[in-house]
C-alpha cells in the first residue's frame, strides 16, 4: 500500500481521530465532575428561571440597564477607534497598493496579525495598569484588538476588489489620491461599513466579559453575582445581555441590508 493511499484512507483517518481524542481525554482532570450534584443543578436552574427584575433599573447607576448602556458605549467607542486606526495599516498591508514592493505589505500584515492574536482580556489587563480600572481600559482593549481584526478583513477586501475602475482612472491621467477616492473608496465603503457593524456587535459581546478583570461594563457585576451564587441576579443580567445582543443583531442586520 502506497503512503498516499494510507494517509487518505477513510478508516485510517477515523482511527487517527479516535486515537487523538482518547489521548486528549486521558489526561484531563475529570475530577470536577465528581463534585457535581443534580440536586444543586436543579436548584440553580429554578433560580435562573426567576430573574430579579428589580435589579434591572433602580436609578442607582449600578443597575443592569445603566451597565448595559455603558457596555454598549465601550463597544462603540472601541470599535470606532479600531476602525479609524486600522486604516493606515490597511494602506500599508494591501498588496495591490504596493506594486513593486513586497516587503512593506508583509510587514503591515504581520503587524495586524500580531495585534489580533492576543485575546482582548490580555489587552484589558495591560490597559488597566495604564489608565486604571474602569470602562476606558475596556475601550482601549477592544480598540487595539479591533485594529488587528478589522485591519485583516479590510485588507482582504482591498486585495480582492475590482481593479477595472482603477485602470480606468489611470487611463484618464488621475494620480494615486484621485484613484483612491474615485475608484477604490466607493467600492469598498459599503463592505467596510458592513464589517464594522458586524464587529461592533461582536465588540458588545466582548465588552460584557471585560468587566471580569475590572475594565468596566456589566462583566464585573455578573461575576460578583455568580460568586455570590445569587442566581436570580445572574439570570436578569444574562437575560439582558442576550436581549441586547439580539436587538443589536437585528438593528445592524437591517442597516447592513440597506447598504447593499
Amino acid at each position, binding site marked *: 500500500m502506497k503512503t498516499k493511499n494510507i494517509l487518505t484512507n477513510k478508516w485510517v483517518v477515523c482511527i487517527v481521530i479516535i486515537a487523538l481524542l482518547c489521548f*486528549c481525554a486521558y489526561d*484531563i482532570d475529570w475530577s470536577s*465532575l465528581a*463534585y457535581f450534584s443534580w440536586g444543586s443543578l436543579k436548584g440553580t436552574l429554578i433560580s435562573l428561571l426567576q430573574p430579579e427584575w428589580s435589579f434591572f433599573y433602580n436609578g442607582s447607576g449600578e443597575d443592569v440597564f445603566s451597565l448595559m448602556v455603558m457596555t454598549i458605549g465601550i463597544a462603540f467607542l472601541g470599535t470606532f477607534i479600531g476602525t479609524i486606526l486600522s486604516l493606515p495599516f490597511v494602506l500599508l498591508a494591501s498588496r495591490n497598493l504596493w506594486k513593486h514592493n513586497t516587503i512593506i505589505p508583509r510587514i503591515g500584515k504581520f503587524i495586524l496579525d500580531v495585534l489580533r492574536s*492576543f485575546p482582548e482580556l*490580555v489587552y484589558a489587563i495591560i490597559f488597566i495598569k495604564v489608565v486604571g480600572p474602569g470602562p*476606558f481600559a475596556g475601550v482601549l482593549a477592544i480598540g487595539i484588538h479591533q485594529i488587528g481584526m478589522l485591519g485583516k478583513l479590510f485588507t482582504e477586501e482591498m486585495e480582492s476588489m475590482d481593479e477595472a475602475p482603477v485602470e480606468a482612472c489611470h487611463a484618464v491621467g488621475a494620480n494615486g489620491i484621485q484613484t483612491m477616492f474615485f475608484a477604490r473608496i466607493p467600492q469598498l465603503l459599503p463592505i467596510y461599513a458592513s464589517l464594522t457593524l458586524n464587529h461592533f456587535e461582536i465588540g458588545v459581546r466582548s465588552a460584557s466579559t471585560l468587566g471580569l478583570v475590572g475594565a468596566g461594563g456589566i*462583566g464585573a457585576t*455578573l461575576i460578583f453575582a455568580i460568586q455570590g451564587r445569587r442566581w436570580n441576579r445572574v439570570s436578569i443580567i444574562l437575560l439582558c445581555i442576550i436581549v441586547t445582543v439580539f436587538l443589536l443583531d437585528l438593528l445592524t442586520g437591517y442597516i447592513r441590508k440597506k447598504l447593499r
Partner: protein
Amino acid sequence: MKIKDTVHFQWYKSLFVVFIIGVCFLGSAYVTDASLSEVFGNLDQMIAFLEKLSHPDFSYIPTLLSPMLKTLKMSMLGTFIGMLLAVPFAFLATTIATQNAIVTNIIRLFLNIIRTIPNLLLAAVLVAVIGIGEATGIITIAIFTFGMVAQLIYESIETIDLAPLEAAESVGANKLQIAVWSIWPQIMNSVASYFFYAFEINVRASTVLGYVGAGGIGVTLSASLGLFRYDRVSIIILSIFIIVLIVDALSEAIRRRLA
C-alpha cells in the same frame, strides 16, 4: 447651478450619517469616562509596565508545557463534542432538510440564543455550577462551538445543489435518508473546514477560559497576575501568542487543502 445638480446631490444623507455617528461617539465617550489626556498622561506608567513585561522568565517554560498541552487538548475535545452536536441541529435548522418551517424557526431561535452568550461568561457560570477544572472548560467550548458551527453548517446547507435531493425524493427516500445520502456528501468538506476554523478560535478563547477557573493556561495566567509576577505573565502571553500563530498556520494550511 444648484447643489442638487452636482455630485453632492445627496449631501443631506451624508450629513445625517455623520450626525448619528457623532452623537453615538460623544455619548460613548461620556459614558465610558474616556479621556485622551489620560492615555498620554499615563504614558510613563505604560512604559514602566511594558518594561516589567519585557523580561520574560524563560525558565518558567517547562512549567508551562503541561497547562499549554491541557489547553490544546481541552480545545480539541470541546470542538469535537460541539461539532458532533452541531451537525444534527444544523440539519434541523434548515427547511431544506426538515421541510418544516416551524421546527426550523424554533431551532434557529434556540441556536441564536446560545450564540449570544459570551464565552467567558458561560465559563464563569458553568464553573460556579459544575466546579473548576478542565472538564468545565471542555463543556464551555462544546456549547460555544455548538452554537457557532451549527449556524455555519446550516448556512452552507442552504447553498448546496438541490438536484440530488430531488432525485432522491423522487425514488422515495425519506428525510433522514436524503439528509445522509444527498445533503451530507455535499457539505462534508465544509464541515471539516469548519472544524479547524472552530478549533482555531477555541484555542484562542481557551487560553483565557482558565482565568475563571475552567482549566488550561488561563489558570496559570490568573495566578501569576495575582502574585504580580509580571515576568511570568509576559512569558505566558508570549507562549499564548506563539501557540495561536502555529495553530492558525496549521489550520489555514489544512483548510486550503480541503477547499
